[in-house]
């Protein structure tokens, strides 16, 4: 029983953190039709920024500053690496994303000297709590609620504001919305800003839980979050969240089983099955050109 609870708890908290990354993937894909491979690395860099900032500044200053810097990074990446390729084939943009990911990882290796960095412990979030006999951190409990709250805010933003409407229009039809006078570039920038913001918050939750950061820390969470986004139906924010929680819980269950070495393999197998059987995912729009 206690074991089952611990698996469920770790699954839910993983799911929550994946969800925050997955939203970034799904929004960017919805608008640009681009798998932003660098997104997982932005998440890792956010963690590193926090490590370095908190060494110099008090936490209440460091945390917001970290979020601002991460948002700036996301914005910068879009402007420098994706915007010049707007008219290029989709493959070029994706390669550019891979290049950015490579650059971020190598820069992180250079800056950290390849040494694992310990994430600072945050007040309250890092403290322990015992639930049904299982000891865990507060962040595990906070994560799902925070995710749901953020998603509600985000859906309100998308459904009821002007920027949100523009985003939906751009996602539906790139060219036409341009003709309608929507400033495509600023809409895309807003998308990246929101995505990076969530990645920054996600990194705070994730690394509070798992404390150590290496340059490759972002790769796996990034890929899993992408699978979650596909699973939930790419372009759909609630879908990404549901997908992320399902993936997180599945991963935990498999890790707890004798088949733990296939936990990653399972995630990808699930992805392939979903793509082949129901390419629109759980909540995806119907008309797509995926198959």
């Amino acid at each position, binding site marked *: 029983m206690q074991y089952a609870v611990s698996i469920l708890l*770790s699954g839910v908290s993983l799911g929550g953190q994946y969800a925050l990354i997955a939203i970034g993937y799904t929004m960017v894909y919805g608008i640009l039709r681009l798998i932003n491979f660098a997104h997982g690395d932005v998440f890792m860099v956010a963690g590193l920024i926090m490590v370095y900032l908190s060494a110099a500044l008090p936490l209440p200053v460091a945390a917001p500053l970290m979020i601002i810097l991460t948002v700036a990074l996301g914005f910068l990446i879009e402007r420098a690496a994706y915007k010049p390729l707007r008219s290029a084939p989709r493959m070029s943009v994706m390669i550019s994303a891979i290049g950015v990911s490579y650059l971020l990882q190598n820069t992180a290796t250079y800056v950290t000297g390849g040494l694992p960095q*310990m994430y600072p412990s945050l007040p309250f979030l890092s403290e322990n709590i015992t639930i049904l006999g299982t000891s865990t951190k507060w962040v595990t409990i906070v994560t799902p609620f925070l995710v749901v709250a953020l998603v509600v805010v985000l859906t309100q933003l998308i459904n009821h504001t002007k920027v949100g409407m523009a985003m939906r229009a751009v996602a539906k039809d790139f060219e036409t919305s341009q003709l309608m006078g929507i400033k495509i570039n600023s809409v895309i920038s807003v998308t990246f800003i929101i995505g990076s913001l969530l990645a920054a918050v996600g990194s705070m939750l994730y690394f509070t839980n*798992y*404390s*150590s950061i290496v340059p490759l*820390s972002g*790769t796996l969470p990034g890929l899993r979050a992408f699978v979650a986004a596909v699973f939930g139906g790419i372009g759909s924010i609630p879908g990404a969240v549901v997908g992320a929680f399902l993936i997180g819980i599945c991963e935990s269950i498999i890790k707890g089983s004798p088949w733990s070495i296939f936990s990653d393999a399972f995630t990808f197998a699930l992805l392939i099955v979903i793509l082949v059987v129901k390419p629109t995912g759980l909540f995806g729009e119907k008309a797509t050109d995926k198959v």
Partner: protein
Amino acid sequence: MKKFLALALSGALALTALAGCGGGSAGTPAPESTTSGGAATGGENTVYIGVFEPATGDSGAGGKQEMLGMQYANSETPTVDIGGTTYNVQLVYADNGSDPAKAPTAAAELVGQGVSLVLGSYGSGVSIAAGPIFGDAGLAAIGVTCTNPQVTAGNDYYFRICFLDPFQGTVLANFATEKFSAQKAYLLGELGNDYDQGLMNYFEQAFTAAGGTVVKDSFPQNTSDFSTYLNKAASEGCDVIFCPVSIAYSTQIVKLAADTGLTIPILGSDTLDSNMVLEAAAGSDVQLYVSTFYQEGGSPEFDEGIKAFINGDSTNLTNNGGNDTIAAVTAMGYDAYYVALEALKAAGSTDPAAVKAALPSVTYTGVSGAIAFDEIGDAIRDTAYIKVADTANGVWALETVQTVSE
């Protein structure tokens, strides 16, 4: 325009080949990288020792600590008398990136620089990959802390000064049964990492032979969520956890165990003997035991010197993880350097072939104990130190000295 660029670049390789022709006749090496602390650059009598260590990647942290030992030894004894002449010793570095795919080029880099012999590496996979390159070039290599049997097996040119995985696995399994009367052990390693899996295998063999049972788990590369694994160990009712994983993973595992108040003792291999792991355990009730090559206090003179060396330079301090706790690999790197000097002295020449011929009979008593090689090229060692983390004071304390008679 672009076609000129294409042609120019494609011609670049050919040009380098031609440049190589010119350089080929010149024979004498000219290493570009010179970092050895304080070595006077006067005189032509310089002998080059290759340092084949990871500075990046999974094992980067350990590799850097090992290099610290060599650099300290080099600053302490920057010259060596070979055949009556005094030579300056210069360390030549090549980063193998902890990656067996990059190891061959890093090894080739050292061969190309004309080193007399090679020290390294931390991590066995890279050493196995580089072995044939050194062998083909007739260059002897002294493994410092690569504990996999495959490093020296079937390779005449690879030697090593540390103990082997079968020994270490057995030592820890015996320790688990003796100290904790453990009946059930939880083994956790990285999937596809030969170091982790090899040690787990030997631990299992010795532990089950003593009547225990094991639960084995492997996590995929770059995993960061270990809570499920630790909970599994608890729910299975295991008496000890054995996790011979690299520093990056072990800090996470130990930190998690510390945070969640895990009461099961954790046993680790030589990789866990790092102050980063110690820091992760600091201030908690976690019981952490590691087997290792050297215990601080074993040679007060060395301890004092290396601490001054580490504290004297901010880069060294960072490379050692921010404080001056001495890692066993640093002591091993220090000893390896002196073994190399002994080999050079015995060879009476800087010629790699002569050094290789002299190396098997070299004996040296270093800070980590007496070093001599058997016929395979492995160090003859029968002692491992088991240390326990004193979490209140943030230091390692000697638990016991374990020997295995084979």
